[in-house]
């Protein structure tokens, strides 16, 4: 082949790719190229996750254009090499289908525009896509002009609270003191969220560039990225990216001869959800226990080591370069009301296409879940609710699916925008159980500093537990409402303030499920095991035998044309048969 630019084979190699074995796929490609003597024609690129969990995703770019393959396993590689790389045809078995196209075409990818497209370890690839051009442009303007631009864009914090980014930058700039810091919050504690991780793994320079611009605007000379220790790959990519940026003079002293100097450090978290809260995060960087303190003073005035500190979330910072390059007007033309730009969601659960979805603010939940999400995972499953915002958020029912994704509309439902976790649930999920799940999480993660959160949440957890055991009473419901509202209003930090939301929203929208547990001692979704008998209902059983092979302890007996039976002495209550039975015959 004669083009000076090589043909490219992109292999999705973020955490999701790694989990699916992208390393083996890559080495199989290397082998094939070598064996066929075509190594010099092709470049294999390990890109960050493109964000659709159909790993391993492989894209091939050559003079014929770009072709996507999904679910590629090492065994498929020789077939792809044979038919596509040398044969000039396609490898039909793994060609990405309509779901794949649908997933990407229905998104507006700005923050994610580089994820899955470039090698995060090669700064040139980032620069080719206008990388660090925004930093240059910012350094040619005054810090005040940069702040104005960010303010005009209407960019709000993507870490949960949605505070206007430009305003925070201005507060930090105007705070007295010459030593200031910028901190990137990469703690991503919501146990169902992975957008920040994918951005850090797939496009680390966009965050670094955002931080450098923020540093220039706020008047800070040093920055910290506080990253969860559970994200080893993201930390590795960041370290590499920082050292490359230093070499190229985008970080360090006298950046691009502007006189502005900025150094960047990484701090690894040590496993505490509360450290995502900004004051706790600062305490943790200082090497102490991550316990929140009351605000004011806000970090913008008194932060790290008592110095003015600007704290922004990963996605917030990744938006900055696009705003500087394309202008505030362009940015604010996307979105609705007071919510501008796009938002990335980590879509998972019982939805067909799980992964990262970026849509303009103002999109409805329905358009997201049934658009890029592709609707429910299986034909038999029926939508029940969607959980947004993780432990601080809420569960919304079907009739709120037309809610627009913006800060105000989501707040009005009792859920929140949150950081972007979005879990779709079908009739197989019990809302009381989900409320309990999040309470278990927040109780375990409460730092214990203030009473409403430390003691109040624990009491709520005990009561919800009683309900799932079939020991609930009417007064429990009132107790949960009262206690929930009290904690909301009195806890010291955001963890406690929002922790009752999963309970309060399920009480509000799925009251009938609580009633079933209390009045009928039954769990309609067949989840709460203390309310299940593990018996086959012969009126419902269609004698299909599907339950037989899934039982891990040989507790089920079934023969053709006979009802299935469960031997209770052998049953370990794993629920595998309940999930499997197409006719809900096991109860």
């Amino acid at each position, binding site marked *: 082949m004669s083009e000076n630019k090589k043909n490219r084979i992109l292999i999705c190699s973020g955490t999701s790719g790694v989990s699916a074995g992208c390393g083996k796929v890559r080495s199989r490609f290397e082998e094939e190229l070598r064996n066929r003597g075509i190594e010099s024609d092709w470049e294999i690129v390990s890109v960050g996750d493109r964000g659709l969990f159909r790993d391993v995703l492989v894209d091939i770019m050559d003079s014929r254009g770009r072709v996507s393959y999904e679910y590629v396993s090492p065994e498929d590689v020789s077939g792809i090499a044979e038919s596509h790389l040398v044969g000039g045809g396609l490898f039909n078995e793994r060609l990405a289908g309509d779901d794949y196209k649908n997933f990407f075409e229905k998104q507006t990818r700005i923050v994610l525009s580089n994820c899955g497209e470039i090698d995060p370890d090669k700064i040139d690839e980032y620069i080719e896509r206008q990388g660090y051009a925004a930093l240059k442009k910012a350094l040619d303007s005054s810090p005040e002009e940069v702040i104005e631009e960010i303010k005009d864009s209407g960019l709000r914090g993507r870490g949960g609270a949605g505070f206007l980014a430009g305003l925070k930058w201005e507060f930090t700039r105007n705070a007295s003191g010459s030593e200031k810091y910028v901190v990137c919050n990469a703690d991503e504690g919501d146990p169902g969220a992975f957008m920040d991780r994918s951005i850090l793994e797939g496009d680390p320079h966009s965050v670094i560039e955002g931080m450098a611009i923020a540093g220039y605007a706020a008047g800070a000379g040093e920055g910290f990225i506080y990253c969860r220790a559970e994200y080893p790959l993201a930390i590795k990519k960041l370290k590499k990216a920082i050292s490359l940026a230093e070499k190229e003079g985008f970080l360090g002293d006298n950046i691009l001869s502007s006189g502005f100097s900025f150094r960047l450090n990484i701090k690894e978290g040590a496993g*505490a959800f509360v450290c995502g809260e900004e004051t706790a995060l600062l305490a943790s960087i200082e*090497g102490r226990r991550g316990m929140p303190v009351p605000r004011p003073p806000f970090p913008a005035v008194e932060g790290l080591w008592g110095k003015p500190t600007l704290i922004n979330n990963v996605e917030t910072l990744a938006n900055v370069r696009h705003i500087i390059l394309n202008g505030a007007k362009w940015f604010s033309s996307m979105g609705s009301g007071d919510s501008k730009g796009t938002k990335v969601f980590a879509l998972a659960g019982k939805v067909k296409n799980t992964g990262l979805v970026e849509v303009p603010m103002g999109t409805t939940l329905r358009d997201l879940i049934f658009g890029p999400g592709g609707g429910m995972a299986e034909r038999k499953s029926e939508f029940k609710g969607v959980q947004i915002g993780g432990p601080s958020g809420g569960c919304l029912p079907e009739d709120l699916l037309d809610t627009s994704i913006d800060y105000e509309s989501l707040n009005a439902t009792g859920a929140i925008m949150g950081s972007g976790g979005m*879990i779709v649930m079908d009739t197989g999920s019990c809302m009381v159980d*989900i409320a309990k799940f999040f309470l278990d999480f927040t109780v375990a993660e409460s730092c214990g500093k203030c009473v409403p959160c430390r003691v109040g949440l624990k009491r709520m957890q005990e009561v919800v537990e009683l309900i799932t055991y079939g020991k609930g009473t009417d007064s429990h419901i009132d107790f949960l409402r009262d206690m929930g509202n009290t904690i909301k209003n009195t806890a010291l930090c955001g963890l406690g303030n929002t922790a009752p939301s999963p309970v309060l929203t399920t009480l509000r929208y799925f009251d009938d499920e609580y009633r079933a547990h209390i009045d009928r001692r039954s769990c309609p979704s067949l989840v709460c095991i203390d309310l299940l008998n593990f018996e086959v209902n012969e009126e419902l059983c269609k004698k299909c035998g599907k339950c037989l092979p*899934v039982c891990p302890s040989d507790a089920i007996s079934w023969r053709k044309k006979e009802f299935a039976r469960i031997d209770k002495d052998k049953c370990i209550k794993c629920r595998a048969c309940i999930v499997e039975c197409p006719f809900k015959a096991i109860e």
Partner: protein
Amino acid sequence: MCENCASSPSGKIFSEKDNSEVSKLIEKYRSKKGFLIPLLQDIQSVFGYVPQEACGMVARELDIYPSEIYGILTFYSQFYMEPRGKHIIRVCQGTACHVMGGREILEFLSDELGIEDGESTDDGMFFLERVACLGCCGMAPVVMIDEDFHGRCSIGNLRKLVEEYRSKD
């Protein structure tokens, strides 16, 4: 001093070499800002946990109260104060995995191995730990054993997997 921070050996003898490793790390961080957590993280990456002896040395050398060190070790879930089993089993308890049956998986492993979250088996083979979102929710429920991910787990295939690990060593 309470026994948590006292410098009594925790089973393994703390050798001269161990001593000098810790001293080296202490020197590396001595004059740095916010050094305590990264220092303890580095110590843990050498030993696989933070030995009591090392805590004692850090406290003495850097003039910190042992209680402050203990406070940090117990606050953050990533610190371990005892050696862990040879194979680390991480069971995802993130939201997506929960919805797809992650709790049953954890309960099964806990029964099968006879240990709770955060414990190691008596034979030193396995350490069991719950974690929040391993970042591949599309494959929920997910279990990670050492560096290997196992997606769409069922009790049946985990039982086989545990057997494989047992017979391998």
